[in-house]
């Protein structure tokens, strides 16, 4: 049961392009998370797969079949809406039974299936209530039950956790992961929360302005982001970026960003990853990878601590190059350091960037280098 989007574009009548030239697929039993800022087109993808909207260009395949011209009724996918979209005038049992009744399944068989699914999702004692009498978490489970009972070819989940309060969110996230493993149905899961994406997805597709930035397993997204945007979107606190000038030396490359108090020396192997003809490059390093050094040691960054945010086990340190440096914009370096480091605001700060933790991006296109 796979879902495939081929060259899909969606342009609305008023001219806005929600999706441009998208190629995406979700494999059998895979949980593919679609993540991105609002307006990136992720919900549009879901609606196109469900058949609620038609693509302006491109084809959509489900389970090897081209469904682009098919109505939603004929596609055999189940969708859980962000608002749950329960039928307010029907009981929980009737809500769950609706997709089965529509297909003409016998009443007894419906009864069995509904009961089974209700128990699976732990709402068996709510079956006679109406949606208005349920809590948010309960309603969500009814929506899930309604989707699960059909044994569809694919599940489409539209921000299922965003309407829940934070405590419920963690709990439900785990339940969803468990449910997915149990049922083994291809799932497309939309969220704007990158942490959710990273913990749940077999693969994660990062979308931005209707284009696919990268689709890969979470760890690959984290360690080898394909674009600057992916690098900035995945991981919290977000990656630090510095625009640096390149100077070639005999045994490597020097990177300078004096306004940022930055001076990095790269060895020959790392230098080869970056194109020799380049004059500038964007350097990225994650806050967790920044290493604090004491005054005397060689450092890539020198500056002053502006803010320390203790988080119990660790602390988030924000530092900027000292004020007397010439450049007007002084980008902040964010580092996550163990609590024992004992950094205080106002003190001098120096850090080194391990070269195997550096990421390089083209300043114009944002594409990854090397």
């Amino acid at each position: 049961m796979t879902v495939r989007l081929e060259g899909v574009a969606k342009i609305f009548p008023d001219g806005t392009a929600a999706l441009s030239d998208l190629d995406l697929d979700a494999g059998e039993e895979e949980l593919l998370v679609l993540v991105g800022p609002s307006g990136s087109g992720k919900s549009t993808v879901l609606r196109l797969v469900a058949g609620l909207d038609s693509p302006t260009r491109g084809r959509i395949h489900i389970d090897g079949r081209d469904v682009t011209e098919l109505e939603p009724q004929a596609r055999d996918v189940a969708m859980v809406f962000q608002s749950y979209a329960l039928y307010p005038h029907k009981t929980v049992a009737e809500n769950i039974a609706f997709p089965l009744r529509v297909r003409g399944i016998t009443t007894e068989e419906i009864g069995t299936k509904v009961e089974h699914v209700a128990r699976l999702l732990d709402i068996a004692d709510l079956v006679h209530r109406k949606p208005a009498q349920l809590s948010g978490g309960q309603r969500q489970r009814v929506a899930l039950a309604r989707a699960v009972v059909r044994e569809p070819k694919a599940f489409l989940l539209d921000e299922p956790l965003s309407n829940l309060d934070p405590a419920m969110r963690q709990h439900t996230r785990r339940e969803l992961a468990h449910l997915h493993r149990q049922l083994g149905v291809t799932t497309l899961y939309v969220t704007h929360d990158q942490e959710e994406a990273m913990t749940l997805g077999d693969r994660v597709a990062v979308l931005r302005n209707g284009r696919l930035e990268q689709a890969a397993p979470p760890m690959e997204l984290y360690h080898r982001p394909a674009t600057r945007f992916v690098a900035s979107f995945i991981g919290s606190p977000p990656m630090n970026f510095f625009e640096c000038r390149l100077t070639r030396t005999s045994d490597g490359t020097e990177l300078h960003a004096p306004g940022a108090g930055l001076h990095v020396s790269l060895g020959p192997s790392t230098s080869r990853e970056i194109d020799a003809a380049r004059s500038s490059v964007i350097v990225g390093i994650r806050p967790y990878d920044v290493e604090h050094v004491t005054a005397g040691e060689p450092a890539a960054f020198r500056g002053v601590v502006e803010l320390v945010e203790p988080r119990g086990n660790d602390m988030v340190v924000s530092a900027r190059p000292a004020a007397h440096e010439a450049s007007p914009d002084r980008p902040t370096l964010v580092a996550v350091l163990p609590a024992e480091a004992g950094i205080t605001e106002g003190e001098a700060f120096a850090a080194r960037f391990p070269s195997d933790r550096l990421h390089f991006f083209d300043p114009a296109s944002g594409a990854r280098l090397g």
Partner: protein
Amino acid sequence: MSPSRIRAAGAVATVLLLAAFALPLYWMVVGSLTEEALLFARPQLVPADPTADHYVALFRTREFLTPIVNSLIVAGTTTVFCVAFGSLCAYAVARLRFPGKSLVLALVLAVSMFPQVAIVSPLYLVLRELGLIDTYAGLVLPYLTFAMPLTIWLLVGFFRQLPPDIEEAALVDGAGRLRVLVDVIAPISLPGIATTAILTFLYAWNEFLFALAFTVGPDHQTVPVAIALLRGRYQIPWGEILAAAVVASVPVALLVLFLQKRIVSGLTAGAVKG
């Protein structure tokens, strides 16, 4: 004047105004219970010797039951068809995509601005051709058409407010459009439909011009026409007229009494949102 004085004066003025609005109806009821001879004597707020003579005469001599039944049939039928056709049309306008939507709405709105007098004659000729003069159908058809704009207007506004994802969920669940309408939309639209039905019924019950023009004899005349044509042999039978007026107002009054919230929401929804 201090703000609280202004407020007090305002409250008194409002109450007086409301009393002024209530007066004519009260007077109508009082008159219907007063002897004919005393009707134009010195007016008294409470009738000294209330009598039911006029009501008796109304139903016995004038057979006023017939127009009442006629009105109920015509208004009821109009309401059923108007709501059915109007809600289908309103759903299409509110939810489906097709070209010329604003044209449809403009057309519908324009119809409600027609002076009815402008189409009385051709309608008369057409109905005569079809043999529908002095029949129920001959009234229901024009009523349907003139009540439709308001129905469509109100229901379009109502449907637009329904969250679209419930319909989409039904589609994805496998229901065809018709099933969605019947099994999902209709049940949750009952408030909007009820309001529209009430307003349509009131319109049909009160309509006068078409009823006057398209009916000939007492067999099919509706209540407004029957009252207007109440004539005495020598003079205007005011007592009976007032009694008839009271009877004509009773169903309306009941509707208003029990459903005033619905009525007001219908009136204001149609207009305030534009």
